[in-house]
């Protein structure tokens, strides 16, 4: 068909006509090939302009129409409709933008006209190739998603729900209400904010059409107008909202305090909290930041924060209960644990780590002091019996976990008393026997049978005796040899045997001079025991330097206090004897070389530096190894001579035999042994229940990070009281333990890194059983037709403006903070107080903090003048006679009743100073200024500089976009204006819609505004949504992509690129295919296709090439 093109050029008043010679462009167009008519009009979009187009289509039989005017986002739909009304397919129309692209951006009239001509020529060439496209309509899903539960979200939700449609209201905090819930009174009417807001909140909670998703955030948005698919993450709040009655019993039990965000950090709340009493839903939330570093560092996972939190509240019994959830050794580990927890303690980054071990011991001591009730035996409900070989920490920990799961457990111990190395390897002055007895008895009382003097050699016999699984934790009881001449002489012994004899009370004869070889804890123990047994000169010989000694620093210090000498950088090379008896040790001096694989510097002998040390006894303490002869047969060993096990499951080469502790690790520490015992218990239970041993192990967890430390005052760590060194002749305990006062103080130093300490007190005391500490985040998928974003604002952080002193000086506060102080439900019950608790006699309010300032935000935040004046009024109402100064740049009281309120406040006697203060300082210049905050300001009306001393300074902070506004905009595919707020599609005529059809905005996420404007916008957005719903169908872009199956290589790249999931892969034909119903015509796949197989109707190559040719 021969093209018959009509070109209609618009003056847009003087918008285009002022810069482009429109008549000339029309003349030019007339001469172009295919153009039947070219005319120009003052306003082509007007009724008259539209009529001309329609008449020309009919009278001149036009089959193509071009309008050169404004942006297609403005009027393309208008002119397409005109064509359709005149019987022409709307896709035979083309729009040329000569306003935004030409007249508004060009000064030179001639150049502008030339450009307009080129663009028109391009369109004339292009439009020839246009094809009529069928109209496409989609159905509108009547459900609506509203993001943000502030007053805007609440209002919109109620409007839509009241009209009978379903609304999903997503709020990231645990309650709806937003910033308005934090306000005291609202300007200019001084209505109580809560009184007008909370009834609306409860309506939301009660409305059956509104599904509330609090403590939730939108994760992903797909689809298009009428058919959005949204994924919402419901963050674990650890409370079942449906079961929680809001009774608050849990709050009283919670031992952890955290700053209340609702009260702007001015008050504390518990880790389990409800932001304010009128919260909707009226349910609690538990705040968890992750696993505290102390707990994460503990090999056995002991919940240190849990028991410390309870100690801080004086709940010692409950605290001990928390520890016993994991293991029975409070008194043992409270004395001898190597406390890896303390190394990770975040408090150490402020001053010193919390004395976790000492607190653990305190709980145990407190129980012994106050008496412990006998444990009730556990009901044995599992049919299988388990044998444990060895009653050290690994064996007992394993037995403890198994019996609590209902397994009958028998522990076989070779020695006459239970406890293993705890009993025979650690001296009494460090770990008294009755402490071990108490904790092993605790386990025995549960029903664990311990058979002492019962070595086990034959595993098969045990298994025949109907034990279904065995845990081998027999320890490492043989000392390493030095491998030097004379090592087996009389007078030479080793630390293992020496300490065992001492702990068993066997008489030991020592000479006056004792040398201990080694630098570990066993060496220190041996040396200190030797001193206690009467040796006059005890020395430790260690081959590296003091820094490399593996023994604990505290132990070394105590040893030295007791007179033990430490010889570093020395190594024995020969034992010198007289008559077969030790007489002296030949040593060689060492120096430190390069670091070895342990990271410690390698000791190297200095040749020719040999010297002799006189000694009557020598105790070798250079490590221990496993005694293979004492272990059952049939087990595999590692190259190190220890039992070989799977590192996760602790399973040996025999499937029903597990092993852990020193027998696997070589000489190690108590807590690692406990950890092994616990892991073996899990494996044994899984083995006996026929479950995979390793699935999901080790369990992953999130560690608490970024623990806030602002405002934490330095405080010394509790010192462990010690027995005076002059009294340390006997085996009396040296560490005396913290007293209650010291323990309480120490426990309160804990920073509660994980926030919730998982002490489980809330769960134990919740009658409806609403608490579930294992709750996981959950993803909910929603299908909605429309979306309203009402995500609100963030208050500007004024600490960015150094000169105003926020965060540096007490009594410089923000407007929102004063809002909480003045609120009768706030942290001070409505008393306006300074940090010292007194009332201010003078208050200065500084306007425009962060607003109207190019360094921060250029815009005016619109509400600060009014809320500042409202606060001034409230201060004077609460504290009559208080001097209030308002420091302003301009007063913007533009709303209904605002100017009247300004006049009222003026008349009430508030002082208004026009001038932006240069600084707020506490540097005084005269005695009257002492102790005050001085506001230094140029009064631009009086024309003078002023220094005004104030008791309190309030900063009226800007409203700024939420910190994640950029991410949200990307997720919903909408734009932001330069100031960071969401961009409306037209600032005047479409203030609620966005670049994405079906996504609307309302409230402060669009720009700062007051409550009345916010509510009006919210209702407006609701009306937009309801209009869509009632239409039921919406016309969408007819341009869609199609794939030429012959050219498609089947690479499926387009499948990944398509944002609308409109492309699928045909497995049989190995080609991709576009679902036209889902395609939005965005063109992403066209650009991405390597094979050039995809084309987009209305944007074909022919059309685009013709357009380019026309332009050139």
């Amino acid at each position: 068909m021969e093209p018959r093109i009509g070109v209609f050029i618009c003056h847009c008043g003087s918008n285009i006509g002022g810069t482009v010679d429109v008549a000339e462009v029309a003349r030019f167009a007339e001469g172009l090939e295919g153009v039947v008519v070219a005319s120009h009009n003052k306003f082509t979009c007007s009724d008259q302009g539209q009529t001309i187009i329609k008449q020309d289509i009919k009278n001149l039989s036009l089959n193509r129409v071009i309008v050169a005017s404004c942006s297609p986002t403005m009027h393309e739909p208008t002119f397409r409709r005109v064509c359709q009304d005149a019987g022409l397919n709307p896709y035979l129309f083309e729009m040329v933008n000569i306003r935004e692209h030409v007249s508004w951006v060009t000064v030179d009239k001639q150049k502008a006209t030339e450009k307009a001509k080129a663009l028109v020529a391009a369109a004339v060439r292009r439009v020839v190739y246009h094809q009529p496209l069928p109209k496409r309509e989609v159905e509108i899903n009547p459900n609506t998603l509203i993001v943000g539960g502030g007053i805007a979200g609440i209002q919109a939700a109620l409007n839509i729900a009241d009209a009978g449609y379903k609304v999903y209201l997503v709020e990231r905090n645990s309650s709806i209400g937003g910033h308005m819930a934090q306000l005291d009174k609202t300007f200019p009417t001084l209505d109580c904010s809560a009184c007008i807001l909370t009834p609306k909140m409860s309506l939301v909670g009660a409305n059956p059409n509104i599904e509330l998703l609090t403590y939730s955030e939108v994760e992903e948005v797909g689809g298009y107008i009428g058919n959005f698919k949204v994924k919402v993450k419901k963050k674990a709040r650890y409370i079942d909202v449906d079961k929680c009655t809001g009774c608050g019993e849990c709050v009283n039990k919670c031992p952890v305090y955290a700053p209340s965000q609702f009260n702007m950090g001015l008050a504390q709340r518990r880790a389990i909290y409800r932001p304010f009493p009128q919260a909707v839903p009226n349910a609690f939330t538990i705040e968890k930041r992750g696993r505290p570093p102390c707990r994460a560092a503990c090999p056995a996972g002991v919940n240190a924060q849990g028991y410390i939190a309870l100690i801080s509240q004086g709940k010692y019994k409950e605290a001990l209960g928390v520890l016993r959830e994991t293991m029975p050794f409070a008194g043992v580990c409270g004395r001898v644990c190597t406390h890896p927890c303390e190394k990770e303690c975040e408090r150490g980054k402020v001053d010193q780590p919390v004395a976790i071990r000492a607190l653990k011991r305190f709980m145990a001591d407190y129980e012994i002091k106050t008496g412990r009730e006998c444990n009730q035996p556990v009901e044995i409900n599992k049919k299988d019996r388990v044998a444990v070989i060895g009653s050290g920490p690994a064996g007992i920990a394993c037995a403890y976990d198994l019996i609590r799961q209902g397994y009958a457990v028998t522990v076989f111990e070779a020695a006459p008393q239970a406890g293993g190395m705890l009993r025979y390897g650690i001296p009494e002055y460090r770990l008294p026997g009755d402490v071990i007895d108490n904790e092993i008895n605790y386990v025995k009382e549960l029903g664990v049978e311990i058979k002492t003097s019962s070595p086990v050699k034959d595993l098969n016999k045990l298994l025949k005796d109907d034990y279904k699984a065995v845990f081998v934790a027999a320890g490492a009881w043989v000392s390493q040899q030095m491998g030097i001449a004379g090592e087996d002489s009389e007078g030479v012994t080793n630390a293992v045997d020496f300490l065992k004899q001492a702990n068993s009370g066997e008489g030991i004869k020592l000479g006056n001079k004792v040398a201990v070889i080694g630098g570990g804890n066993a060496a220190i123990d041996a040396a200190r025991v030797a001193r206690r047994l009467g040796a006059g000169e005890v020395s430790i010989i260690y081959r590296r330097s003091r820094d490399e000694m593996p023994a604990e620093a505290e132990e070394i210090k105590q040893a030295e206090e007791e007179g033990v000498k430490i010889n570093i950088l020395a190594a024995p090379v020969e034992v010198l004897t007289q008559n077969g008896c030790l007489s002296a040790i030949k040593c060689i001096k060492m120096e430190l070389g390069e670091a070895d694989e342990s990271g410690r510097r390698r000791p190297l002998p200095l040749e020719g530096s040999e010297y002799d040390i006189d000694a009557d006894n020598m105790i070798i303490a250079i490590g221990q190894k496993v005694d293979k002869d004492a272990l059952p047969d049939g087990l595999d060993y590692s190259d190190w001579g220890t039992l070989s096990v799977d590192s996760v499951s602790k399973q040996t080469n025999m499937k029903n035999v597990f092993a852990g502790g020193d027998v696997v690790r070589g000489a190690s520490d108590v807590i690692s042994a406990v950890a092994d015992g616990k892991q073996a218990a899990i494996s044994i239970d899984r083995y006996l229940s026929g479950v995979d041993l390793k699935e999901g192990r080790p369990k992953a967890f999130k560690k608490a990070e970024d623990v806030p430390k602002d405002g934490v005052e330095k405080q010394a760590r509790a010192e462990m009281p010690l027995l005076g060194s002059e009294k340390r002749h006997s085996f009396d305990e040296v560490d005396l333990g913290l007293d209650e006062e010291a323990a309480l103080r120490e426990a309160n130093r804990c920073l509660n890194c994980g926030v919730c300490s998982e002490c489980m007190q809330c769960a134990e005391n919740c009658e409806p059983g609403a608490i579930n500490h294992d709750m996981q985040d959950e993803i909910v998928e929603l299908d909605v037709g429309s979306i309203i974003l009402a995500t609100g604002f963030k208050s500007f952080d004024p600490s960015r403006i150094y000169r105003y002193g926020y965060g540096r000086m007490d009594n410089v506060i923000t407007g929102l903070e004063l809002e909480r102080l003045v609120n009768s439900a706030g942290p001070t019950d409505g008393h306006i107080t300074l940090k010292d608790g007194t009332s201010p006699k003078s208050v200065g309010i500084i306007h425009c903090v962060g607003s109207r300032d190019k360094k921060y935000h250029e815009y005016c935040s619109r509400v600060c003048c009014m809320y500042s004046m409202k606060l001034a009024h409230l201060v004077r109402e609460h504290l009559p006679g208080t001097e209030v100064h308002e420091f302003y740049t301009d007063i913007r009281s533009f709303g209904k009743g605002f100017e009247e309120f300004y006049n009222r406040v003026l008349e009430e006697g508030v002082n208004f100073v026009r001038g932006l203060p240069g600084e707020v300082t506490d540097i005084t210049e005269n005695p009257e200024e002492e102790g005050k905050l001085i506001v230094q300001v140029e009064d631009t009306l009086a024309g003078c500089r002023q220094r005004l001393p104030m008791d309190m300074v309030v900063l009226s902070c800007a409203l700024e976009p939420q910190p994640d506004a950029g991410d949200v905009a990307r997720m919903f595919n909408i734009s932001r204006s330069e100031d960071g707020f969401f961009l409306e599609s037209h600032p005047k005529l479409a203030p609620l819609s966005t670049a994405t059809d079906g996504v609307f905005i309302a409230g402060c996420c669009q720009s700062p505004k007051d409550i009345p404007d916010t509510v009006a916008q919210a209702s407006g957005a609701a009306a937009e949504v309801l209009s869509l719903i009632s239409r039921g169908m919406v016309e969408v872009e007819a341009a869609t992509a199609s794939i030429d199956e012959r050219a498609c290589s089947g690479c499926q790249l387009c499948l990944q690129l398509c944002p609308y999931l409109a492309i699928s892969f045909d497995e049989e034909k190995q080609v991709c295919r576009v679902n036209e119903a889902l395609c939005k015509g965005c063109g992403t796949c066209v650009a991405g296709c390597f094979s050039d197989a995809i084309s987009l109707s209305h944007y074909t190559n022919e059309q685009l090439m013709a357009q380019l040719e026309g332009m050139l």
Partner: protein
Amino acid sequence: MKQYCYYPGCSSEATAKGLGLSIEAIAGPLEIELVEPKGWVCCGAVHYGSLDSTEAIVVAAYSLALAEATGLDMVTPCTGCYVTFTRAAKKLKEDAVLMQQVNRGLAAAGLEYKGSVRVRMLTEVLINDIAPQSIASKMKRSLNGLKVAPYYGCQLVRPNFGFDDPEAPQKLDNLINSLGAEAVPFPMKNRCCGSSLVIPEEKIALDFVYKVLKSAADNNAQCIVTPCPLCQVNLDAYQGKANSKFKTKYKLPVLFVSQLIGLALGLDKKALGLHTNIVSPKSVLKHIATKKQGVAGGA
């Protein structure tokens, strides 16, 4: 050895001799080579700019052109010179017309400025190029326990050319601390000392001097340390007058940063020009002498 084009400025040869002397003294031990361009002239600071801004820039450009010929960064110890040169260099870079105008003037002296000089403040070079740790590693004497009020003055951080936060500067504090001395909290650290008013409005200037001295003394400083020759002479020479006006008895030595570093490097007090200070620095020297000598910091 790091090389710099060194522009001493007129102060360091006249009212602030201690500055010039101490810089020359510390340069060697810190392995800095200072190349002084022959024939440099006054930077054109202070009041010239308000009389004829173009001529003032020509004056600055004269020395900039000399510096450019060395091909090195131009380093000045004077905050006044630093601000003048930085401003001139910036203006010339941004304004091609001005550059032409200025070069017409320079042509009379046979010079040309192309606009490539990087102007730097000596204190900034010490902190960024030499680094406090490296200075500390060369220390011969400990300044342990010496309480120092770090005085930045107004020009070093304003206008903000990126050296430090104009409202809460910290870099001088860090340098002082790295020498083992203790930078005391000093709220007046970046306030004007009043030096430009000392001739026309002495009364007002003394007010400023007093406030700075009081703030330092109230925070138990034993001395004030500043990089600025204008501040130094003002706080030092007018301390007596401020004392009589405000009936105080402050005797706070006002040292240059380079003098303090020189003391830590174990240099002779005469070589550091300490004899040119008006308020005697004896108390500082005594403090250093009585401390047990050991090397702190990064050694």
